[in-house]
């Protein structure tokens, strides 16, 4: 490990000692579960350590609670997004068990893929996302997508372009 990492470690551990209890208290009522809150506290500090320019970011932080809370909120949202995805997965599994008859490892990796895809598409409007998935994942022709969504084919083209632009920018800016 190089010197900056040592410095970073001590900075983070100082922050952990000073704020982890507060953060746990902040999270607990928000997630309604002390164990989940404890897990999230750990995740928050992992994020602090692994952030790009972690040391510089820590230097710049004037209000450590605000900084930690911001990361914690993102993680809560991620967590909730994951829960939704798993619920949706279970529902689909109940509807068509044969389609998803896969091993536990395959399931984990599929859920992770879905999670990343879901995060990428999250900012899109419902119709845009739907059109993009039907076209790109299900391979449905634009004409049928247009009929299904009750819009014109021209609109479907625009939806696909909009989604593609968003996804390319998202991938480039999120390092995927």
């Amino acid at each position, binding site marked *: 490990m190089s010197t900056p990492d040592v410095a970073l470690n001590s900075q983070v551990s100082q922050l952990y000692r000073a704020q982890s209890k507060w953060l746990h208290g902040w999270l607990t009522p928000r*997630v309604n579960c002390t164990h989940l809150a404890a897990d999230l506290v750990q995740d928050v500090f992992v994020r602090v350590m692994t952030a790009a320019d972690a040391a510089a970011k820590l230097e710049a932080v004037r209000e450590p609670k605000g900084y930690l809370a911001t990361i914690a909120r993102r993680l809560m949202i991620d967590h909730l997004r994951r829960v939704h995805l798993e619920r949706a997965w279970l529902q689909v599994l109940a509807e068509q068990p044969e389609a998803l008859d896969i091993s536990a490892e395959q399931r984990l990796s599929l859920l992770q893929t879905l999670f990343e895809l879901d995060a990428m598409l999250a900012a899109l409007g419902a119709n845009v996302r739907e059109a993009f998935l039907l076209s790109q994942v299900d391979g449905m022709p634009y004409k049928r997508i247009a009929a299904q969504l009750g819009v014109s084919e021209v609109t479907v083209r625009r939806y696909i372009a909009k989604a593609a632009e968003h996804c390319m920018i998202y991938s480039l800016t999120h390092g995927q």
Partner: protein
Amino acid sequence: MALSAEQRTALRQAAHWYSQLNSDEVQPSDHSAWQSWLNAAPANAWAWQQAERLQTRMSATPAPATSRVLSLAAHGRHATRRRVVKAGLVLLGGSALGLGSYREMQYSPLLADVRSGVGEQRSLILKNGSTLLLNSASAVDIDDTREQPHVRLRQGEIMVEVPEQQRCSVVTRHGSIAAGHSRFCVRLFDDASKLDVFGQQARVTLASGQAMEVHGGQSCQFDGKGFSAVQTLANAADAWSRGLLIVNDQRLDTFVTEVSRYRPGWLHCAPSVAGLRISGTYRLDDTEQILRALATSLPVQVQRRTRFWVTITAA
């Protein structure tokens, strides 16, 4: 990575071609036009690489059920908080924040206009960790660019929770409320605003300069000119934030007016039954169920002219 304007333009054009070439009606002329675009600038070639990466990623996405799972998940996220409570999933629920936390991404910090539809509740988290829950048919503008968020309540009712060591202010056309760590609810009526404080305290200041401190367990109304007497909060006055309507020996007309806030259309009760009394706990996400319960527990009948026009009369 930060993208240059040139790159963004090229990506937009690449996205257009991505859409064109994915169509089942691609013409040969499209291909030649695409080819000339591709050759026109290095940025275009770079952008098209990104488009190909996306195409590869999408076509490698496994499982026939993927799009179904994703659209169900998205649907779940955008469902109202109460519908999720109904499904038994109260994860970030209770007093803190609901699914509306996703909407965090949907307001821009400066004077965002956030509204909830009839029968819908939405929650938001502000930058300093304060949470807002908009009750049915409510609207707020939020200025979250400063250290202390400013919320303008334009319509309806909001529950605000301010975390420790933070502040938040809520303004209505009748006055402004400033609070540190606290939990309070503000409701806007035509001629006055009402503040209910559930934890700690909040301070109301009127345009005239008059000010008053309202403490936990207290409720107070104010218009531009003055304050009403401070009252003790009714039991379960904040039940709506949990998706419930809890009443004890309430007049039927008052009850029906309250229920009508949560459903579209016209709901009212005939004067002959207005004075009947009602008690109970009702779920706000199912006003039809409330109407059915009325007909079985009171000597009334529910007359439906249309789905949106309902009158409660003597049985």
